[in-house]
């Protein structure tokens, strides 16, 4: 077994363990931290496959920016420990077998029909230059459309977050700086 494969399996194990821990923890901040571990482990997998740029972006964007905001919100809300319930009986009777069946089906379809081949370690064309050329030549239109979508989302967030003026009409306006 090569070092690459051992590392790949190790990162995969960390990712799965982190995901399970995310569900098992009762405190929101522990769940958020397990999610960060999952993201970091995925970045390791990308790096081993040769997609260096995607790995770096995974860490910077997901682990470094989005999850910081998650943790920030949890800290601000001061969310308490979640209460354990036994869960509904329907979920246990049908949910768990259904999920297993569904994932089996997806795995079978992917392996049988999609024509995907196994990727040897380090074989993906993941250098920053390749990604840049692809994004800004072949996929320029989808890229620009996505950026407009994100811009709309940002503006929506600003509109939702800004408070409507609560001053009664005619009342003297006091500046609060």
């Amino acid at each position, binding site marked *: 077994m090569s070092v690459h494969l051992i590392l790949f399996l190790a990162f995969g194990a960390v990712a799965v363990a982190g995901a399970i821990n995310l569900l098992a923890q009762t405190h929101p901040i522990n769940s958020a931290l397990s999610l960060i571990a999952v993201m970091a482990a995925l970045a390791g997998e990308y790096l081993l496959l040769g997609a260096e740029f995607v790995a770096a972006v995974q860490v910077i964007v997901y682990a*470094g920016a989005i999850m910081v905001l998650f943790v920030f919100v949890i800290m601000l809300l001061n969310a308490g420990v979640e209460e354990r319930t036994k869960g509904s009986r329907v979920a246990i009777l049908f949910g768990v077998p259904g999920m297993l069946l569904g994932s089996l089906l997806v795995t079978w379809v992917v392996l049988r029909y999609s024509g995907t081949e196994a990727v040897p370690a380090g074989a993906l064309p993941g250098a920053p230059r390749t990604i840049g050329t692809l994004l800004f030549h072949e996929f320029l239109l989808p890229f620009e459309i996505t950026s407009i979508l994100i811009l709309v989302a940002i503006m929506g967030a600003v509109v939702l977050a800004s408070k409507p003026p609560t001053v009664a009409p005619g009342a003297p306006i006091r500046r609060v700086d």
Partner: protein
Amino acid sequence: MPIWIYILASVIKSAIVLGVLLTAVAYTVWLERKVVGHMQNRWGPTRVGPFGLLQPAADGLKFLFKEDLTPPHVYKPLYIAAPMIAVVFALTSIAVIPFGNSITIAGYTIPLQITTDVNTGLLLILGVTSIGIYGVALAGWSSNNKYSLLGGLRASAQMVSYEVSLGLSLVGVLILTGSFSLNDIVAAQGGHFWGFIPRYNIFLQPVGFFCYLMAAYAETNRIPFDLPEAETELVAGYHTEYSAMKFAMFFMAEYANMITVACLATLLFFGGWHGPIFGPEILQALLPVFWFVAKVFVFLFVYIWVRGTLPRFRYDQLMAFGWKFLLPLSLVNLIATAIAVAW
């Protein structure tokens, strides 16, 4: 080169770099106390050893022997993990920084860098430093203390805000070089303009350098951006509840981050290890490392100088400066650079 030589070289390099880095962290604290002391018409440390040079050792011993208090109301797992997260990620980012050209020992070419040349080196540093935020944020939250929490919140908000400008200020250099690899960026700065001015990026990217320096000061929570630990308002901010070695770990993380910022400024804007090379062969091998260290030292001095000079921002000034001045400025710099290169 055989794999075992590669591993051996990596281990030796890691040990040396880590040793030098930790010593540098200790002596940056000494330098800061000394320089700020002289700026304020005091002597700074003088009692322990000549010029107080053994003060870092005394401080280290003191931190080790102090009682390690854990207040009863903290959330223990994260309270213990937070300083470790801070210091580990602060020390990790040094791994991709190249200190000099590769040297040849016994027929093997060894790069003066812990890792080999990574083609996303700059992105790795940004990623590792962005994870370092968790140390501060979790310390503030897990201490279960209002001053700590406010400090942690301020720190994470400030770091997320200034990270945008930090990233954008570096893109100008990346456009000029066309590579994320720190070695390529340094190599592109060799040679001279008109035969006498060194071809450093600072002459092509002065605005980018200004944005980088401002954003980096904010990222490292240093004066004038040290609101997360503003003593007059927050006791000590996120590390209020910490004592002994755990407190020292936050201190080490802060100074290691300063050194990383200084290294990055040297590599990206001041030509890395380039400088006059002369003399016999052994001198020629060592001079690049000397120039690199000298430039890093200048940046650390500027850090301390700024600390001794400027007062602290108010919080609304900090946010306004980051979003309304620094971000537009770095965007304009980026667009201007792109147009100039394309044209």
